[in-house]
């Protein structure tokens, strides 16, 4: 499934617990930065001075699905929004640490967040098509990015890639708001694909959909991961187990004195291992509590 990813990286990640100390080693950093899509080091997020996510370090590999799981409010959305600098849009949000995208720190002062988002697609919890036609929804990204090629072809390819073409090919000029919820979400995926990113971030993409639509989205993800790295936030552990190669478990830590709470990365690794042989007691409780 992922033949060209280096075995050394895989071994290191499987044995490693949260990798904060390792990150300091320059050799490691060099290795991960060449093969990983994202190398995240000591990532913390504050909302108006209150910490919401603390010291997350994690690598994301290409052509894999990484699931982010954890209880509600533990910072899953906060985390995934860091990866395309969507947190910049939240007044009062500050991000510290490093997010290296193919070795390039997207939080470096000279990096333009708009340029970052052109490379890293995102699909949201609730389908959010523009109140425009199906065609114009898909064409939006290419147009604003000054796409010069054959737009019709690009729209068709994107819709095909999102397994939506057959359903909408006769209503490309109709409003996207007339589509069903599941279709709208696939439209949003197609829209993200149309700007040719190499990562797609998905924040609970199926939580507003019915089970049948959910299955279609999951099938689609299996197709898409042949080309893209996918990071999916989900509160549904069956879903994480079904779709992902790797899983990261976030959890809320509470300071008893101040009753401040923030999210931490408890552990991450191959999905099978996280669900069957978690290393951390909290992961085990969470995973078994939900499954049992």
């Amino acid at each position, binding site marked *: 499934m*992922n033949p*060209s*990813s280096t075995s050394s990286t895989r071994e290191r990640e499987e044995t490693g617990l949260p990798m904060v100390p390792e990150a300091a080693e320059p050799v490691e950093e060099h290795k991960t930065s060449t*093969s990983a*899509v994202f190398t995240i080091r000591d990532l913390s997020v504050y909302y108006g001075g209150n910490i919401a996510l603390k010291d997350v370090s994690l690598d994301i590999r*290409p*052509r894999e699905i990484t699931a982010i799981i954890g209880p509600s409010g533990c910072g899953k959305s906060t985390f995934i929004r860091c990866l395309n600098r969507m947190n910049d849009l939240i007044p009062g949000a500050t991000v510290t640490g490093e997010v290296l*995208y*193919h*070795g*390039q720190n*997207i939080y470096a002062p*000279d*990096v*333009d967040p*708009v*340029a*970052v988002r052109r*490379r890293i697609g995102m699909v949201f919890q609730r389908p959010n098509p523009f109140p425009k036609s199906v065609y114009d929804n898909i064409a939006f990204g290419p147009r604003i990015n000054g796409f010069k090629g054959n737009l019709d072809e690009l729209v068709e390819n994107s819709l095909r890639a999102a397994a939506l073409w057959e359903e909408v090919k006769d209503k490309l000029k109709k409003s996207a708001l007339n589509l069903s919820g599941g279709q709208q979400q696939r439209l949003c995926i197609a829209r993200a694909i149309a700007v*040719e*990113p*190499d990562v797609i971030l998905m924040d609970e993409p199926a939580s507003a959909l019915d089970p049948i639509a959910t299955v279609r989205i999951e099938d689609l993800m299996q197709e898409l991961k*042949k*080309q*893209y790295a996918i990071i999916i936030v989900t509160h549904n552990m069956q879903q994480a187990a079904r779709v992902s190669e790797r899983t990261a478990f976030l959890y809320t830590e509470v300071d008893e004195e101040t009753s401040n709470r923030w999210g931490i990365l408890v552990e991450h690794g191959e999905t099978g291992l996280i669900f069957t042989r978690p290393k951390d007691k909290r992961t085990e409780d969470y995973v078994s509590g939900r499954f049992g």
Partner: protein
Amino acid sequence: MQSQAKPLGDIAGGIAPVPIENRKGVGRRADSLFSVVAALSGSLVLLILAFMVLSTTNTALPIFRAEGISFVTSSDWHPANGDYGILAFIYGTLVTSAIALVIAVPISLGIAIYLVEVAPRWIKGPITYLVDLLAAVPSVVYGLWGVFVLLPLFLQPAAELLSSVLGFIPIFAGPPSGLSYFGAGVVLAVMIVPIISALSREIIQTVPDDDRYAAYALGATRWEMIRGAVLPRGRAGIVGAVMLGLGRALGETIAVALLVGSATTINTSVVRPGYSMAAVIANQFQEASGDHIKALVAVGVVLFAITIIVNIGARLIVWRMAD
């Protein structure tokens, strides 16, 4: 598997990833240019207002200088002699507006309460639509209608009735005229009813149902519920709505110009002719020249000052409500 060669999709295949390239300067500059243009457009409102005050005051300055305080304390208005005292106009503006409020406030509140609390669903739409229609009618149409329809049909008989029944009170003393403070006030009332009732309706709608249920649960009748729960909650907002209606009445020009009777002296009786600040500007401007025009501008400055105070007061009340 790697059939679709994409610059970004083939990292694992060993092709170096394309680094994130910042937008060219144009994109960023377009962004900040746009925000500057938008901010300037916003600030335009402030500039216009400031310019309005400066330009008019500047033109009126010789009159203010020459007349001093007597400009607003004297009611001698004789442009031919260079006498410019506008007390009669200030008085007329206040009296016509007061009459309008006396008539319009109870009616507007009645409508607002009826529409929110009492009216069956099907009738709300038509009534709202018809009352809103009043707001759409241009004031010159009100004026024409007032002079040729309402004056013979209602204003003149009503003025006569008022002075024959209540004529012993100075403010209703005759000889009665429909073209009077009273006539202008009635038409003004018709004009501000849609304003006050629409705003009050919005405010009454924001009173939470829980408050209503609480009053009903204590055994209140509907009216007791309205008086005990709805009106106290909405009081500040309703005061704001009334003041906005007042602001409109104070500045209304054409309808008053046609109905107030155009007498440049103060009349204690509301059924006698008078004048208002806005009306004197509209009626005398075309025949005026020289200092007379400057004096009319000065009237406008005083009118502006009065309406702006009322308006700011109203907005502050409404804004405090909203926060």
